[in-house]
């Protein structure tokens, strides 16, 4: 099969699975699961440094070095555009001018659904400020298109609420977003297990970003491998082109030459 790269902000990636680094038991598990997933882009969060404590504790960036992974700092936990923009600017400084960020502006603590109005405004500011913005949004095709038009480098609709594991709740909206897009569309949030990832990829998603489905599985490293395979299988099935669904049977063995 010829090379099938995912291109985001001009950079080529061979893996279409992007993983988060939260919720793992420890650094070792984070490293092993990330490695097993084959992810090349990994999200990180920006939080207060633990000043004066655990000086020898390994740092996340020591076990997942920026030379090996493309880091995707997120604005998780931000409920206003001001906080999201502040977080991105801190991340850029933290990572020596790194431009790629995952923008999310949340609107509700229970659902973690995005506040799309604030998201649109924040995206506009960040794009003007020269960031490469991968944006978390809901599965609204109109908003997804507007985020693309603002200049986001990838649009990432949710499949279901963050961490819910409910799977692809609205495949026709995701399909509509994909069919109208000129930038990569990645499902971000809601995947629960391997079949969910395969379904998203079979719809034609360019990639999937997930964290909880791997990190909170009984065996995160094994689930990371399962997700890697599911994303690949889903992608290959999409490229191969599935058969249409039909109501009645169609024999697989020829009628010609039948002797009964």
């Amino acid at each position, binding site marked *: 099969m010829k090379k099938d790269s995912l291109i985001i902000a001009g950079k080529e990636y061979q893996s279409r699975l992007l993983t*988060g680094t939260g919720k793992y038991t420890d650094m070792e598990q984070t490293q092993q699961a990330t490695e097993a997933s084959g992810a090349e882009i990994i999200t990180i969060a920006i939080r*207060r440094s633990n000043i004066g404590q655990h000086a020898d504790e390994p740092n996340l960036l020591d076990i997942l070095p920026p030379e090996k992974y493309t880091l995707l700092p997120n604005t998780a936990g931000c409920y206003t555009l001001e906080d999201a923009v502040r977080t991105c600017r801190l991340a850029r400084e*933290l990572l020596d001018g790194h431009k790629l960020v995952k923008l999310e502006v949340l609107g509700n603590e229970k659902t973690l659904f995005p506040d799309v109005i604030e998201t649109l405004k924040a995206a506009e500011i960040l794009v003007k400020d020269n960031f490469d913005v991968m944006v978390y949004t809901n599965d609204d095709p109109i908003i997804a298109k507007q985020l693309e038009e603002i200049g986001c480098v990838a649009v990432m609709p949710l499949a279901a609420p963050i961490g819910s594991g409910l799977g692809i709740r609205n495949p026709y909206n995701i399909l509509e977003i994909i069919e109208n897009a000129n930038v990569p569309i990645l499902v971000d949030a809601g995947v629960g297990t391997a079949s969910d990832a395969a379904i998203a990829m079979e719809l034609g998603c360019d990639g999937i970003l997930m964290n909880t489905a791997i990190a909170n599985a009984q065996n995160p490293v094994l689930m990371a491998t399962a997700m890697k395979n599911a994303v690949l299988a889903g992608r290959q099935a999409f490229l191969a082109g599935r058969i249409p669904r039909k109501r009645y049977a169609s024999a697989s063995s020829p009628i010609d030459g039948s002797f009964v």
Partner: protein
Amino acid sequence: MDIIVNGKTNTVQPNTSVADLITILALDGKRFAIEINKELVLRSSFDTTHLHAGDKIEIVGAIGGG
């Protein structure tokens, strides 16, 4: 004078620079980013940026997140 660092009150000498604060907190050589009163301070300005009483300083790093 008192300043607030990551939500906690710290007492420093008047005219302390951001570079001084980093040394006081033993953060030299570590990877972090700083803002004062919600404004980013670039590393190149640590020496020339001075703190004022009541400044709210956030020092952040990367941790696991999705």
